[in-house]
């Protein structure tokens, strides 16, 4: 004979599971519809999650190598990495083979996690606050403010889109400095220095990450 408590637990589990199934089914059915399109609130929710995850990592006190892995995971989860990588390659994305594109995307994600992860180290003891979101063209701009110790607050802006099939951010501006543009310039310079050889650039980028 189960006790009263056990029955209660069992019941709530069943209820939760059922609700979950319904929600899941609804999600699958409704997602392509217009009612589920990205809006300012959802863009803000995404950036709230990104910021919460970044804040958790920078206050975790984990080792640098672990933090870089954490940032890579955050980047993969919340950013539209294939679109960002393709943009960073610029015109060269057109002559890249499918294998080169996918290899570059993978290496680029690691490179970004390490490069920007090092910057986030400066955020230790600080926090990022999400301010507001608004629609711009076909996507959403979410403004945040970074508060660092002994530093005037500064603006960090995320651009969010659902064009990849899920809500993801595809660009970030730190005090007006455009991440996509800065990385396109850097990757372009790496290609130039290697006579446009995409494979060599990928191999060397792998070393940087």
């Amino acid at each position, binding site marked *: 004979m189960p006790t009263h408590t056990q029955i209660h637990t069992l019941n709530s589990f069943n209820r939760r599971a059922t609700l979950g199934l319904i929600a899941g089914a609804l999600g699958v059915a409704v997602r392509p519809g217009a009612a589920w399109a990205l809006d300012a609130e959802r863009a803000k929710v995404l950036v709230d999650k990104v910021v919460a995850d970044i804040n958790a990592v920078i206050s975790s006190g984990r080792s640098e190598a672990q933090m870089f892995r954490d940032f890579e995971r955050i980047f993969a989860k919340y950013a539209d990495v294939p679109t960002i990588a393709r943009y960073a390659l610029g*015109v060269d994305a057109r002559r890249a083979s499918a294998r080169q594109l996918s290899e570059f995307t993978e290496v680029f994600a690691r490179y970004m996690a390490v490069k920007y992860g090092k910057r986030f180290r400066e955020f230790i003891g600080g926090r990022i606050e999400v301010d507001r979101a608004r629609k711009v063209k076909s996507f959403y701009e979410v403004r945040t403010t970074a508060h660092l110790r002994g530093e005037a607050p500064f603006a960090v802006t995320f651009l969010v889109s659902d064009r990849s099939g899920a809500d993801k951010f595809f660009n970030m501006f730190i005090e007006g400095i455009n991440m996509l543009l800065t990385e396109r310039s850097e990757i372009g310079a790496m290609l130039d220095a290697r006579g446009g050889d995409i494979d060599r650039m990928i191999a060397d980028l792998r070393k940087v990450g």
Partner: protein
Amino acid sequence: MAAVVGLAACTAPDPSVTRGEIFDPYEESNRKTHEFNRALDKALVRPAGNAYGGVIPQGMQENVGNFAENLSAPGMITNNVLQGDARGGAINLFRFLINSTFGFGGIIDAATEFGVNVEYTDFGETLHVWGAREGAYIELPILGPSTERDALGKAVDLFTNPLTYVLSGSDRRYSRAAGVAKRLGERNRYGDTVDSVLHESADSYAQARLIYLQSRRFDLGGDMDALYADPYAKSADAGAENAYEDPYADPYADPYAE
């Protein structure tokens, strides 16, 4: 003053060059200066910054930085006035008064503790407010990335701080020393970021140029709305072709616009 504005507008960019792009006709000589600055940083500034950061306790570094910044406040107020920026001027004046008194002569940034943050400005911004164009990109020896307008602004700013006319010779030297110490502290504090641009980038000249121009335009523009409105419309008209052909054309380019 009219002559100054005239000078500031010296190199008129090609009419096809818009505000979102880079105008760098002196690239060849700029790159030479950049190599000099890079070598100088590696040989002198970075080691000095590390030594300063390693020897001087963090708290004292902040005091020195605050002291130097407080002494620069009257110069910023002069520029606020020249720009007709009453709000910025009032904020910087308030900060100067609070920090000079409650902040023990500026060593403590009491105003920031109260939530009143500095409103940075300089004569380069004054020229911008007066309508001078940005001009060509210039990398200055020792001082680093700039534009024709900002370089002229820096020169004029040697004279815009009323304190320089009031302080005695030895006080001026302290003030200058505090300014240099502040720079070294910053070189140390942001060491990783500076290193990644200056010493780890595939083309540190292009990175420094791009980062400086974006950051400076952002500061002068204030909010990004003005920047958003125009380039988005342009990219919609031009389509994806242009976004790929000219990496500098559109700072807010839509990578999905294919």
